[in-house]
């Protein structure tokens, strides 16, 4: 890995490379450049995940033609796909070194294990939602209980905007969450559930299920679970798998016409 990055920097395949390096005992993202090529010896995969692709978009915003290399786990790869589709990065200017992801049943060794959430306490299990559950488990609760459990989770929100700030696919110049006509500003907790639902709706067809939002949430709201559910709907209804295809999601309202098109099986259902 290190030799390849060195070669890339030397022959100009990339102008800079985003990877990780131990700095003061912490595995931190680091930008490797040709001028300090000896640093590449310290390039590590790093156990902590940062959104390197988001840093890359910030660099590309300042200098659009720069060639960026970066370490990519599976989630980074999906995020990059979304950023290419939405024209935030040019795929011709990005090179990746693919690295190991989270361990799973299929893959025993993983360099990343950040998605394993710590077990919920007894109160949270009773009145809230355990972050380790799957969308189908939540549906087992019944409608009124589901609402009260989600409301318990949402009312903890301290409105730090961390979920939006850390999100690799949140790049809008103007954010609905700061729009006073849509969401009340100032008060704490924020207007619930609308604050979280506005974000959830925007994550439909956009969220790549990296779990960084949940990592960054100071009050452990099961955000990943919520976005998994909205994406499940996008996948069921529109047959759109976020982060894998090369087309924009069906929720693209830019342009003169709305081109939402359900997947064939849904069309057949409505015809009957």
């Amino acid at each position, binding site marked *: 890995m290190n030799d390849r990055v060195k070669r890339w920097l030397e022959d100009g395949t990339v102008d800079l490379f985003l990877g990780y390096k131990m700095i003061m005992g912490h595995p931190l993202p680091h930008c490797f450049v040709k001028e300090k090529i000896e640093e590449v010896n310290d390039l590590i995969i790093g156990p902590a995940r940062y959104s390197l692709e988001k840093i890359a978009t910030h660099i590309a915003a*300042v200098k659009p033609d720069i060639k960026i290399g970066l370490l990519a786990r599976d989630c980074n790869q999906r995020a990059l796909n979304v950023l290419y589709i939405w024209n935030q990065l040019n795929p011709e200017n990005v090179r990746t070194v693919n690295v190991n992801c989270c361990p799973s049943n299929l893959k025993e060794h993983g360099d990343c294990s950040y998605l394993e959430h710590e077990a919920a306490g007894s109160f949270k299990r009773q009145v809230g939602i355990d972050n380790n559950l799957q969308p189908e488990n939540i549906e087992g609760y019944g409608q009124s209980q589901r609402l009260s459990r989600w409301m318990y989770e949402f009312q903890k929100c301290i409105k*730090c905007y*961390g979920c939006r*700030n850390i999100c690799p696919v949140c790049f809008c110049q103007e954010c609905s969450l700061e729009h006073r006509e849509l969401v009340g500003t100032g008060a704490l907790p924020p207007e619930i559930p609308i604050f979280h639902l506005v974000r959830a709706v925007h994550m439909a067809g956009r969220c790549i299920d990296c779990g960084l939002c949940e990592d960054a949430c100071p009050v452990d709201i099961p955000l990943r679970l919520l976005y998994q559910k909205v994406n499940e709907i996008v996948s069921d209804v529109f047959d759109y798998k976020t982060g894998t295809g090369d087309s924009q999601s069906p929720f693209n309202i830019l342009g003169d016409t709305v081109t939402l098109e359900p997947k064939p099986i849904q069309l057949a259902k409505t015809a009957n």
Partner: protein
Amino acid sequence: MQCKLVPSICSYCGTGCGLLFEVIDGKINSTLPMKTHPVNEGKLCIKGWNLHEHINSFMRLKHPLVKTFGRFIKTDWDEALQVTADRFKEIVAKHGPDSVGMLVSAKITNEENYLAQKFARAVIGTNNVDHCARL
């Protein structure tokens, strides 16, 4: 093109969350929580998340100002400190040392807090020392 990620500690309150500043071409572009920091474990509050905004704010005070005839005049540190020292001396001589109070802060280091209270007690001669975290 220069891109650096600089580890730092949040200066907003006394908690001391670890964070990373994303510096692009010498300008702090955004703030990220440090994932492996034992204090915040990858989380931040809204103030921490927006540190780069007040570093880059045009309202930020970058030079010492001395109020002369009701207006703030830009000056250098030597003069600002001299004016402050002279005024303190005047006030202490006229009204006694207990007319002065020292407010210290959770945002500065332990050592700076120590120095500040030492200055209040040994130099000015008052026990009027208080702190924003004395709830």
